[in-house]
């Protein structure tokens, strides 16, 4: 099952921050060497920092997800980053760096599982995003736990963002 109480609770900003900053800055000034960086610029890396869904679809492997998003109920109300990046400058750009840099790497090496599956950490980001917009709707049901995965929205609303 998708959801599990034992799944320990959400991102630990404290520890992450430093790591993130490092990567983010590195990317920003483009001083990272190797394919990753090459790909990053080639795939319009800069557009990572925009909210344009097309930015994500620079990668054809993201194309299906863009298409599925266009068919989804959220097409007109939420873009990729609304769901896939947490709020707050640092964590937001860390996540983008993750999608941008590590995905670039994975994409270039071709070393990733197909079909692409969301990672637990990313799912946490998404689950938190649901609550960001729908607090009022769910405040009664979303109780009594500190892990967003303990009460998973996507368990039932799996295709709000991507309608296949």
């Amino acid at each position, binding site marked *: 099952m998708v*959801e599990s109480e034992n799944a320990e609770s959400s*991102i630990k900003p404290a520890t992450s921050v430093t790591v993130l900053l490092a990567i983010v800055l590195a990317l920003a000034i483009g001083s990272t060497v190797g394919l990753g960086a090459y790909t990053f610029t080639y795939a319009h890396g800069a557009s990572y920092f925009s909210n344009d869904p097309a930015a994500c679809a620079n990668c054809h492997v993201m194309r299906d997800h863009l298409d599925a998003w266009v068919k989804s109920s959220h097409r007109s109300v939420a873009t990729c980053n609304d769901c896939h990046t947490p709020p707050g400058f640092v964590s937001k750009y860390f996540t983008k760096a993750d999608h941008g840099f590590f995905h670039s790497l994975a994409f270039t090496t071709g070393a990733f599982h197909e079909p692409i599956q969301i990672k637990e950490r990313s799912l946490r980001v998404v689950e*938190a995003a649901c609550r960001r917009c729908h607090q009022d709707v769910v405040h*009664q049901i*979303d*109780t009594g736990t500190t892990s967003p995965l*303990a009460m998973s929205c996507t368990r039932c609303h799996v295709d709000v963002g991507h309608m296949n």
Partner: protein
Amino acid sequence: SIFEHKQEARNPFFRVVELTDQTDDPAIWGKNFPLQYDDYRRTIDQVRTRYGGSEAMERTPTQADPRSVVAQSRIEEDPRLKIMWAGYAFAKDFREERGHAYMLDDQTYTERQKVAQQPGTCLHCHASIVVPYEKAGNGDLVKGFEKFNQMPFAEARKLVTHPVACIDCHEPTTMQLRISRPGFIEGMRALKASQGIKDYDVNRDATRQEMRSFVCGQCHVEYYFKGPEKRLVYPWANGLKVEQILAYYDTEQFKDWTHADTGAPVLKAQHPEFEMWNQGIHARSGVSCADCHMPYKREGATKISDHHVRSPLLNINRSCQTCHKWSESELLARAESIQERTLHMRNLAMDALVELIGDLKAARTANPPPPELDRAQMLQRKAQFYLDFVEAENSYGFHAPEEALRILGESIDFARQGQLAIRPATGQPVPQASSLEDQCTVTR
């Protein structure tokens, strides 16, 4: 951030009255949670689906039974049930179950109370009993449970007032789900122990999603009364599958009654919804009872769990369509085609069992009785328990379609083998007048 949001979420309820462990009247809880309370009261509705729900049948109230409406009788719908249960209270009165609002009355006034002396144990699943148990046990739930088990039903009945209520599923201060039934707590401990998990505590160890099914598993399960103390026990020490439960009863040498026509030591299976659901694809996929029977509904600005617990087929858009994109009519057709197939095999199994019972009846009077009579009786016990395990399960196979068909197929095999056990071997000619003559002339 997530954290702040969570903190707010912790206690999202605006309370007008304080609720304690003594508050068993749902009307008082309703002051704090009017939406849930309104739906809860609607379990009084009676609507029939093709195989479920229930039909409101008018009746003229009597002194003994003041009910003016009951659900349809199952034993009149299918008289073969009377043959299966010959000699047991269920052959006198067995009705389609209906909404939670009726549980206390239906238990109190069923004919089954008249033909047999029932213990207070019965109330474990038909009343709001947390407070009464604690009172009877001076604060000790299990002690109270044991006291109730040993009272006669009539005496125990005086100590309860409500059908299942808020306090039976909720912890009053946080509104978290909570298991209040000793039968389930002990049953789960035995089950987990059989899987190598020591002293499992359901209220401590279960996930929130599990609790959304466990609160129902408190009552929607197979059970029996153990020993002279009439302790309520869920027979799960070997596992939840029909063969594991039967094996448990065999080692306990337990029988519910002796079959009137055949003398076989037989068992009555009762509403194993929780056990069957566990064998199905939905449970395997993490889908809980509440997901389907208490789906979320939008009330004004917020979502709440629909406390009008009922057949999901009366509420397909909320119960099924969030997960399944098919149309309501298509989803209804899918559920009904599963139920139809189950019913078809259930009828074949019922015919086989009735024929076995007929043969056993004849065989007992035969002189000499066939040598394999005992084996045939044990095969009846098996065939009957397997069949009743699906018959008594109230989803007509939907909760676990493949398991239901597997069980019915095996039931047919047991019943037919029982018939074969008490017949002369094939090839042995039926003695006919003529052939007898011949043999006589030979001997002459």
